[in-house]
Structures are given as structure tokens and as C-alpha cells.
């Protein structure tokens, strides 16, 4: 009994160490963002701001092009997500439900493209995007992100759609629905947890992506957050850490909010108990 309790206590301790190790940088980011400039480098450092202030956020939103970068990131993230998920859900359904020669080969080739390092595709993609006249545009970024988010999204959704019993779709067709209506009214609701997780994955990938955004966009008006914030802060010789932390906090907000709203959908399985056998 005592050994069991000690074991449980040690286990809890280990879990808390890991949680704190992961959470501390986030806490430090928030704490620094709320400190005035002179407190950022105070020695000894203060864990919580002694004089908490929103000054850094105010400066960020009024004196820097942060809002432009933010809006650009939102546009690129949403457009990429909608495009990728729309194509992937239809593609995954086709790969799962239709029998045609080379079906498995196509599925594996799609995954193969995902295995190539992103940096390898950077130059060829840049050339293609430039020739299309889309360099320095958000549309160019959306296309580039789609090329490497789509294969993974396709495979992720494929595994969700495989798990949906075909009987339900067939029942809908017998009940009078066309295949497309059965897809929309029966398959999509079943695949919702998969669609949401794929959307989150795609959005976060697009939101955090730095390399392509850095190479493809050279004008400030079209920059997204990761390269935008970095270049903005590099313009001054000394890095303003408090401002950088405030930017980091605001960059984390959409992902955190989105995730907390959608996480219940990720774990909720509509399908359980609906089909026997």
C-alpha cells in the first residue's frame, strides 16, 4: 500500500516536472510581455512583473506593422486550410470508395511527395510561383503551402474515411439521396473529427511557416507574421525582447483559441455505437 502510494507520488512528480518544463517558456513569454522595458533585464530577474503593463502590446499594435502581418497570416492560414481540406476530403473519399487501377499506387505516391524535405522544393516552387506572377503575393504562399499540406491531409482524412462504414452511405442512397448528398449529409458529419484535426494541422503549419514566407515575400505589405516579426525586430540593432514577447503572445492566441474551441470535436467520435457487427 505504502509502496503503491510512493510510486503514485513519484509518477505525479515526474509528470509535473515535464509539464512545468514545457509550460515555463510560455509563462516566461507572457510574463516578459507584461513587464516594462527596465524590468526585462532586471537582476535578479522577477518571476512575475512587479509593475505589469500593456505598454508593449500598445506599441506593437500602434507603432509597428504587426496588424498587417497578422491579417496576412490569417488570410493565408484560412485560405490554405479551406483549399487543402476541400481538396483532401474529396480526394480521400475517392481513394477510399472508388475502385480503379493504380489506386494504391496513387495513394503512396501522394505520401512520397510529403517525404521530400521542404527545402528541396523551395527553389522549384519559387520559380513556378514567379512565372505565374504570384511572387510577393499571398496567393503564391497559399499555393506553396497547399503543395506540402495536401499530401499529409489526404492521408490523415483517408484514415478517417476508411473507418466510416459504407453501409451508412448506402442506406442514404437507398433512402433517396444521390452519392453527393450522401457524402455531404452522412460522410462529412462522420468525418468531422478528422476534418477538424486536419484543419488545425494545416492552419498551424501555415501560421508558423517561416522559410517559404521569407523567400517568397519581399514586400512588407504581404509579409506574414513569422518573417514579419523577425525583420521588424532586426531593424533595430538591439532586440527589444519585451516587444518580441508581446508579439509572440499575440501570435499564439489564435492557435490557442482555435484549439480550445475545437478540441472537444477532436475526441468526440460520432460513430460509436451506431453500427453493429
Amino acid at each position, binding site marked *: 500500500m505504502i509502496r503503491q502510494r510512493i510510486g503514485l507520488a513519484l509518477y505525479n512528480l515526474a509528470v509535473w516536472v515535464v509539464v512545468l518544463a514545457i509550460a515555463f517558456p510560455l509563462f516566461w513569454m507572457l510574463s516578459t510581455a507584461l513587464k516594462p522595458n527596465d524590468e526585462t533585464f532586471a537582476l535578479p530577474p522577477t518571476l512575475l512583473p512587479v509593475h505589469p503593463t500593456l505598454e508593449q502590446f500598445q506599441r506593437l499594435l500602434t507603432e509597428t506593422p504587426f496588424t498587417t502581418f497578422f491579417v496576412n497570416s490569417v488570410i493565408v492560414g484560412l485560405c490554405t486550410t479551406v483549399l487543402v481540406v476541400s481538396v483532401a476530403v474529396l480526394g480521400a473519399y475517392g481513394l477510399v470508395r472508388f475502385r480503379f487501377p493504380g489506386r494504391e499506387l496513387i495513394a503512396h505516391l501522394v505520401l512520397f511527395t510529403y517525404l521530400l524535405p521542404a527545402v528541396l522544393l523551395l527553389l522549384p516552387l519559387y520559380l513556378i510561383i514567379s512565372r505565374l506572377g504570384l511572387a510577393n503575393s499571398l496567393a503564391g504562399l497559399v499555393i506553396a503551402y497547399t503543395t506540402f499540406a495536401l499530401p499529409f491531409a489526404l492521408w490523415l482524412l483517408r484514415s478517417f474515411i476508411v473507418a466510416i462504414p459504407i453501409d*451508412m452511405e*448506402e*442506406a442514404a442512397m437507398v*433512402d433517396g*439521396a*444521390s452519392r453527393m448528398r450522401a457524402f455531404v449529409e*452522412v460522410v462529412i*458529419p462522420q468525418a468531422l473529427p478528422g476534418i477538424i484535426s486536419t484543419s488545425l494541422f494545416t492552419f498551424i503549419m501555415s501560421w508558423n511557416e517561416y522559410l517559404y514566407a521569407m523567400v517568397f515575400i519581399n514586400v512588407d505589405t504581404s509579409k506574414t507574421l513569422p518573417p514579419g516579426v523577425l525583420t521588424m525586430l532586426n531593424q533595430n540593432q538591439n532586440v527589444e525582447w519585451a516587444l518580441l514577447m508581446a508579439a509572440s503572445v499575440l501570435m499564439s492566441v489564435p492557435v490557442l483559441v482555435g484549439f480550445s474551441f475545437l478540441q472537444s470535436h477532436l475526441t468526440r467520435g460520432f460513430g460509436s*455505437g*451506431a453500427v453493429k457487427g
Partner: protein
Amino acid sequence: MASVTLQALRKRFLDGTLALNDLSLQIADQEFVTFLGPSGCGKTTTLRMIAGLDNPTDGQILFGARRVDQLTPAARNIAMVFQSYALYPHMTVRRNLEYPLRKRGVTGKERDERIARTAALLKIEPLLDRLPRQLSGGQQQRVALGRAMVRDCDVFLLDEPLSNLDAELRAHMRAELVQLYRRFGHTMIYVTHDQAEAMTMSTRMVVLRGGELQQVGTPDEVYHAPANRFVAGFVGSPAMNFLPGDLVEEAGVLQVRTQPFKVSLSDQRRAELAKGAPSVLVGIRPEDLRLEPGDGPGRVVLVERLGHESIVWVGLGDQRLCCRAAAQAPLAADQSVRFLADANRVHIFDAEGMRRLIGRC
């Protein structure tokens, strides 16, 4: 409602498997026909082709005079109950029942009335606002039936709808289905591998094996005059016993001789006997084979006492024969027994068991 005609229906899958070979069948309007057979016999494939979920490789399907094999499932006006029930898990029971009506453009008030009527009939009114995952297997089964019954259809298809229920519920639902059929008189096509369901529910049975039609007939015909060894062995539980035998004429009487017993055929039965080789396969059902304790070729292996009767397994060389006996039959393991058979109850097939040679028992 409509009759269903299958004309030379054939289905070959992409991998080359011949799932159904040249099936022709006429199902009358308001008939309850059961497709019976082991796994892979083509019964579900046939049902799916009638539903429009699979396309036939060759042949035609007609509902009444209307050819339907090129139509989508939606255009065929059928209702189907799936083995898995296939309820829409994100919709409540009410919305599940509503779905086929909405698809057929049934308006609000009529829709509500039909749902209420169907729910009352199947006693699922208290479940209308629940999700399928909140229902037991039996309740889900009722909802699946309700979804099929809620609208008027030409043909009602059921794909092993009771196979996921426990034995008690299955027997109950079997009786309810028959009552529903009598009440509504739909043309019903029912697929099952359970011969008890086929025997008790249908007006006619279609026995299939390996994509080939074996026999079509009333349950009584199939049981008492099975067309071949397969049907004879598949229908009936415990299964029929088979023994190699010979037809021997002795003093003007035709005898059927097997190792454990011999019987003399009456003139009437002899007249029914098709001509063939003297070597035959003799079948006898467990209830038609009697055992007598005493010096004989058989040795009792096991006596299963079921309360109302006993099932007795008797060793005969390498073979085991099964007999039904009275509940308190004075038989025990290792006892020697003689076999007695009624000449009017033996089934005679050709030596390969491919063809029945004598009339019904």
C-alpha cells in the same frame, strides 16, 4: 408494391470471382422470399444488385414491368434494412426516420404523421429524441426497420437484420417481422444464413451455394424434398445423416441397403424413383432414424439430454450419425445400438449427391 424478376443475373467481381452465376427467379407481388446459404454463396450480392448498390455483370432486374438494373438505388423505390442497421449516428431517431421522407419530398404534416404512426407500430416513441448510440441493439434494430417502413416502397429488402441480436430477441423479432409482413403485405426479400429464420418466415426459400441456385421452394418443400445433398444437409438442425447405399431388387421388392439399415420401398415410392445407377446416397434426418439398444453396428458416443428430447450421437466406423430420441431414452455412452428407419422417410440422391432421385418424404 411490385413483383421482382431476375433474368439470367450474373456477377463477376473485379478480381475475377464469380459471385453469382445465371440466376433467374420470379418473385411474386407481396411474396416473402428468403435467400438462404452459407457465407460467399451470393445471397447478399444478389440483394445488393436488386437494391442497386452493385451492378450485375449480365442479366436484367425488373420490378413489375419496369426494368431497374440501370437505375440508381434512389430511383428504384426500395427500402432496405442493413445487417449493421446503418443508422445515421449524428441524427436522432426522429431525424433518422425523417430522412427517407425528406428525400422523397414528403411534406411537414404528413411526414410527422408517418413518423408517429411508424414509431407507435414499432413501440419506439420514447426513443425519438435519442441518438443511435444511446440505444440497445434491439432498439437500433427497430429504428432501422422503422426507417425502411416509414415510406411506401415497391420492394422491401432485408440483409440479415437479426444476426446481431441475442437468441431471445431474435426469436421475438422474427415473430414481429412476420406480423408486419402480414399486415403490410410488402414484397419482401430477406437474406439470411440462419435456416430457422428462412423456414419460419418465408413463403418461399431460395437456397444458394457458391453463386449457383440450388433450390427454390416453400420451406416445406425444401425440408421434405431437398433437391440435392447440399440443400438436404444445410436445411435442418441437426443436419441430415448421409450414408452410401445400394438399390437392390429382391423377390420383386426394391430395397435400399446401407451399412446400418435396409428398407424396402413401397410400390408408390418405387414409382417415384428416377432411373439411375444402383449406387446411391441415402439421407435420413435425425428424427427419422430410430435406435434400439442391443447388438448392432453402432456405438453411442454421446447423449445430449435437452429436457424435451435427447440428441444421440452414434459412431459407425469412421462416421457419426445423429438421432433424435425421447427425453428419457434409455441410452448411454458406449452402448451398442441397432438402427431402424422408415422407408417413407429416406431421401435418395445419386451417388454424388447432386440430384434427388425420389419424391418428397
